[in-house]
């Protein structure tokens, strides 16, 4: 990727590449999977309804953590005011509609393939292929979702097992995506070592 192409991409996707803001969101999902496997039975209040409170608490903690993390990016790499999205809302609506259709079809046809998971996997893999695979970690995440979709887990196993596998997939995806995007940003943006970080012309 040329310097100019990289400059354009980084400026356009700066907010998305602040991966440390979303990585903590994967922890509640991994925690739910660990709870389903019985690994957290020693944690007080984890059983029964208490598990839900733990999950919500971890999720809220991750959201709160995103604010100081955002401040870290602002003070370390600066601020970009993004362009107003031209195609964002229609694209999101299209993806949501496709997901609903895939779920509708999947509920009525006994297939071993999970269409919604396959759709998500394809979308993530496509993201990983853009810009000369700059965010190649999304390709790996997308393939993991496609494998999950084609594994037939939800046909052959009981629902608790499928839930555990799904939570592991989502949690690992969020953490991998977050850490991967952060590393892309850190490697791409250079800090002049002899200068302070104060802004000014």
């Amino acid at each position: 990727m040329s310097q100019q192409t990289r400059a354009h991409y980084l400026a356009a996707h700066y907010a998305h590449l602040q991966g440390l803001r979303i990585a903590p969101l994967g922890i509640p999902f991994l925690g739910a999977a660990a709870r389903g496997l019985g690994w957290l039975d020693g944690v007080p209040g984890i059983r029964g309804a208490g598990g839900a409170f733990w999950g919500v608490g971890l999720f809220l903690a991750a959201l709160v953590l995103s604010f100081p993390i955002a401040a870290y990016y602002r003070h370390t790499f600066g601020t970009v005011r993004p362009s107003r999205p031209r195609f964002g809302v229609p694209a999101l609506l299209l993806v949501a509609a496709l997901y609903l259709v895939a779920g509708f079809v999947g509920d009525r046809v006994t297939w071993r393939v999970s269409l919604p998971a396959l759709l998500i996997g394809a979308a993530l893999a496509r993201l990983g292929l853009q810009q000369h695979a700059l965010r190649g970690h999304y390709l790996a995440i997308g393939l993991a979702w496609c494998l999950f979709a084609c594994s037939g887990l939800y046909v052959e196993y009981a629902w608790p097992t499928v839930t555990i596998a799904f939570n592991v997939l989502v949690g690992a995806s969020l953490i991998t995506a977050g850490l991967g995007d952060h590393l892309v940003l850190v490697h791409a943006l250079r800090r002049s070592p002899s200068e302070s970080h104060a802004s000014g012309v």
Partner: protein
Amino acid sequence: MRREFEDICGVDRLVHEPARLAILTALSACRSADFLFLQSLTGLTKGNLSSHLIKLEEAGLVAIEKGFEGKVPQTHVHLTGRGSDAITSHWQRLEQVRQSARRWRGHVGHGDDHRRESDPTTFDIRGARRAPAHAPKR
């Protein structure tokens, strides 16, 4: 780069300089960016980046806004309309040059000797003929 080729390209040196090109390209992808982000992106020193921004501002390609975020001074830079047009036309021109260079590659070194004997033009890009700075010696 040869003078004739620069003339044909019509490249704007103000825009074409790599650091300024990176700055303008980045600003074309967002509403504005602050000084720290541009410094992180280009790897320039503060003084060097300031110098480039001042040149771009004097040419009317960018606008610089200074303010405060709490007690911390902030400097935001955004493209002007003229700057947006300049960077867009610059990339279009480079694409045209790339297309021309592809066609030019077919002319150079492929039986053009007969052309050189009667025509002082040292090279010929389709649609543009220039007099050579120095006539070829025979």
